[in-house]
């Protein structure tokens, strides 16, 4: 678990330096004006701040011989990493697919998948909660809040409109 000891400081320093280097783009618009403060001055100071504080963090970790608190927390708590991975993948896929297959279908599919990986076993409960939940949310966001939620691309747009018509919200 000691390998975690310098991970945080190392990430902070490296990320700060990489972004700092990427700021030197040679873009003439980014030159500083007569005042000495250009568009990049503030982010540059903040990035240097990140690097310096990251270094200080690393030094304090080095000087502190005892096992650091974050290592203790990380090692003490048991995590279901496969569950986490499944959760992240499902949430990311949901976010990405909304634009392509439309909010209505993406939400229904997401809820079904989420309930399954969350440990719900009754197929009837999964389908009923997903369908009812999606319907209520659609009504709330489209009919009450008038949010222009994505309807999908191509055929999915037609399918979404049919769902809206079926629910009486289009």
């Amino acid at each position, binding site marked *: 678990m000691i390998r*975690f000891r310098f*991970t945080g*400081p190392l990430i*902070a320093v490296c990320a*700060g330096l990489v*972004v700092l280097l*990427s*700021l030197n783009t040679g873009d003439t*618009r*980014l030159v500083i004006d*007569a*005042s000495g*403060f*250009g*568009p*990049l001055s*503030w*982010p540059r100071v*903040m*990035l240097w*701040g*990140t690097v310096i*504080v990251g270094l*200080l*963090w690393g030094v*304090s970790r080095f000087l502190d011989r005892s096992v650091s*608190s*974050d290592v203790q*927390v*990380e090692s003490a*708590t048991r*995590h*279901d*990493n496969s*569950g*986490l991975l*499944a*959760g*992240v993948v499902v*949430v990311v896929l*949901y*976010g990405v697919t*909304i*634009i392509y297959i439309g*909010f209505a279908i993406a*939400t229904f599919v*997401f*809820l079904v998948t*989420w*309930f399954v990986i*969350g*440990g*719900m076993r009754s197929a009837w409960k999964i389908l009923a*909660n997903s369908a009812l*939940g999606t319907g209520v*949310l659609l009504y709330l966001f489209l009919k009450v*809040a008038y*949010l222009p*939620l*994505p309807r999908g691309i191509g055929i999915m747009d037609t399918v979404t409109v049919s769902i809206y018509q079926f629910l009486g919200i289009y």
Partner: protein
Amino acid sequence: MVGLSHLFGITPFLLLVAGIFVGVIAGALPGISFVNAMALALPFTYVMNPVNAMVFLSGLYCGGVFGGSISSILINIPGSPGSLPATWDGYPMTQRGESARALGIAITCSAIGGVASALMMIFMSPPFARFALRFDQPEFFAATVLGLISVVAIAKGNMMSSMVSLFLGLVIGSIGLDPLYAIPRLTFGWHVLDNGVSFVVVLIGMFAIGEVLGWISSDSKANIRPAMQTRARLPGFKDLYKLKGTIARSTGVGCVIGAIPGAGAIIGAIITYGVEKQISSRGDEFGTGVEEGLAAPETAKNATTGTATIPLLTLGIPGSAATAIMLAALMLHGVNPGPMLFITGIDLVYTVFAAYLVANLLMIAIGMLVARGFALLMKIPPVLLFGFIVVLCLVGAFGVRNNMADVYICIGFGILGYLLSRFNVPSAPLILGVILGPLAERYFLTSMISYDNQISVFVTRPLSGSILFIAFAFLCWSLWPNIKQLLARFNGRT
């Protein structure tokens, strides 16, 4: 009395109650926010007379500032930025099975802060307005720096990781077009980032999505949520007496910060939390569910409401997004706020005073009702609740600018929030950096333009110099225990 007699007519009173209800509910729903609710409610005020419109919006404002704390305390997701500190000590109380007590303290302290602020507004408007008028760009910058410095005070034993988190937030806050030249920075060619990263999206992602991922990654998914009490339990007089010092200090700080245009509830709540952590005898326990740690920001948050309205009524200058919407409502009705309003529209002014006073008292009952409904919602199985929270959060993120990019950013910050919490790096400083960073940059650059690029202006102007001195003293005060520890260790070695 004139104001109270106007307010207790059937229509104004019902509008006040409706405003508080809408405000508390909107405030409690992450991603909706009471400011959005006020903006949405603005068209409805067309059909009201100016007095009723202001009564409705006053109720919405007072209720909304408190409402965010309900979700902070019950599910560790702040409904609004000002409710962020309520997660630090409110949620640990819920985890201990003391949600009713935590909600009771939050409601009562918010009401006390709000009533005190309303009284300040009634009796102290002229001196507060003069004080607010002395603030220029360097003072706004100094006040923002004071807010940022308070991160050091709230760091719970992990100073360096908190500072890294803060700087990371400041970097994220500087993404997008710069405030003076409108040139994109740190966008890496992604035009969706030109408008910057919305702090609401960051807040939703880090807290809500991060919390959901924390649940799905836990070994014992069914038992992770604490037992929820459905009724808020108001603290007794004895309990309140114990918190008298905290409430008095937080009311004072909150009222003063509220009068500063642009500072608002978030800075007030965070500074008072930091101050209280230093002053309280239980300062070391802050973050573990300490009453003082919850009472301080809750009192200060609502203590900013009345005094924030003073510059609006006396000078016609809105000091926050909420008061800007109130200004819009007044102007839509042909009412121009300013010194003349106290002569030509004195009935309206008195009714607004009365509305603030009564709204903060009614908020106790309405806050308890909404909190009960919210707590009942929490009784549904976690797998269902978290599934719908993901959907609501992504729609909330989309709704900020009707932009799918915000949905992706929200998910990204959710994953980052989970990783930070897993490796014990505090996420609150990052969020503060995202909120206060753009303000600090804007005030800094406009100060430079206004004062011939003389960087010394921040210390040579008496008011900004004083605020920066307070910030420096606060920093030393907060760091003193660490310095003492280092010295003791050094002495031990030699």
